[in-house]
């Protein structure tokens, strides 16, 4: 598979076109924005959590296919997780993206996130692939229960 087709796998293209959990979340308890100053992209993540357990999550994004797909996949994975578990998963994702040789297909926890494997050949796009995660992880524990 060419680097390009690995970057734009069907899973990514589908999430880009028909993202999961798109739009503002009714009754959200937290909300955070992340911005990529390099390209002007913006993503907003909304979530609901009860006793530090995530019970709902949505997003809105002005961004490229990689940032939208990554946000969409993220929202599909996190319900029922604690903020600690979310952080763990994020560091797994980072490890996967930053290591050009990682064979992360193996890690079931990553789910559809392994479709981001193509990003490893495009270091400039790692920021795109992690934008929504940064918004969430940097804020989910402190903002639960309020905005």
């Amino acid at each position: 598979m060419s680097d390009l087709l690995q970057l734009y796998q069907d899973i990514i293209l589908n999430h880009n076109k028909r993202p999961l959990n798109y739009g503002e979340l009714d009754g959200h308890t937290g909300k955070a924005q992340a911005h990529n100053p390099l390209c002007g992209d913006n993503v907003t993540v909304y979530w609901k959590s009860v006793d530090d357990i995530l019970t709902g999550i949505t997003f809105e994004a002005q961004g490229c296919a990689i940032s939208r797909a990554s946000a969409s996949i993220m929202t599909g994975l996190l319900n029922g997780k604690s903020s600690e578990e979310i952080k763990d998963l994020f560091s797994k994702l980072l490890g996967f993206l930053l290591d050009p040789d990682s064979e992360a297909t193996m890690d079931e926890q990553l789910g559809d996130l392994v479709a981001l494997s193509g990003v490893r050949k495009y270091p400039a796009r790692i920021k795109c692939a992690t934008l929504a995660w940064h918004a969430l992880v940097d804020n989910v524990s402190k903002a639960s229960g309020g905005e």
Partner: protein
Amino acid sequence: MSFDVASIRKEFPILKTLVGKKPLVYLDNAATTQKPRRVIQALESYYTETNANIHRGVHYLAERATEAYEEARRVVARFLNAGTEDEVIFVRGTTEGINLIAHSFGKRFIESGDEILISTMEHHANIVPWQLLCESTGAILKVIPVSDAGELDMEAFDQLLSERTKLVSVVHVSNSLGTINPVKTIVEKSHAAGAKVLLDGAQAVGHFLVDVRDLDCDFYVFSGHKLFGATGIGAVYGKYDMLDSLPPYQGGGDMISQVTFEKTTYKAPPGRFEAGTPHIAGAIAMAEAIHYLNELDRTDLISHEHDLLEYATGSLSELDGLKIYGTAAEKVSLLSFTMEGTHPHDIATVLDADGIAIRAGHHCTQPLLQRYGISATGRASLAFYNTREEIDKLVESLKKIQVLFA
């Protein structure tokens, strides 16, 4: 003789690059232009035959270097049709040039309540220095709006201009839209209102000849690297009496007349504004780029670029869902566009796999893109060494993207 793009391309070694197996199609000239061989050679021969520090040695090389550097200043002065070479200050580029003027003009002339007028289509380099100046002085920044087609709203400009306006600072050619602004009219009207004018010529000088005395602007700034020269060098033109009335920008060596701990006196322009060792090789190479351009027939270059613009506008417009931003009557060979269903970054990444270099993003003009309700465009910016075949490749590749992202 008709314009021979093939022989022009031979002068630019980098245009032979292969990206993977595909020939490079370089359509990012608004970011920086490529360099002809003789500019690259000028850098090399400076370091092999001339290198020394300037203005401070009596030995053979120091005199040679000083003479070459000062000759470069005369070349830039003639290129802009400045009154004398003392009206040309070497700086790192457009950004430093604007900061220099904001600092020195600001210190001398700007007070609380004064107004500085810029436009919605400015590069961040012509926004942020004025915001900093306004913050420190209490002056007020006003903004000329742009139309849907990407032209300055000249009626609004008339309204905004007043006796409070001290400086009008606008872009000559927009780096995001390609619009050529009616700068001569802007200068006339501003002067009539008692305001001085700075023109950001970063995107103008590479496309057509600029005559600062005909424009009658008070300041003009540009970057060498967008004029087929090296990075790290550019120039500020300022009317001599204006420059002579301004305090220095940075302090240091080379800009003083005499230093004592009680009182330091400064050199006359341009020396007053050139503290420290400048980019000597860069100035000399920029002069070489100007010689190269002067030897070409600029009307040929302009008509070739115009042909490319028309051709590209026609063929891009035929693509479904493609929208061009910037449709001014007067524009240079630059196309900003969006394509439905595909973000500009993805477009640029896929084009890159075909060897095609464009820019995607906000092009350092975030307020302008906000004006159009978008956060990014793809931008193909063409120079005289580009060809219709390269535009065909761009269009073919964009069609592939439409299929991939459909």
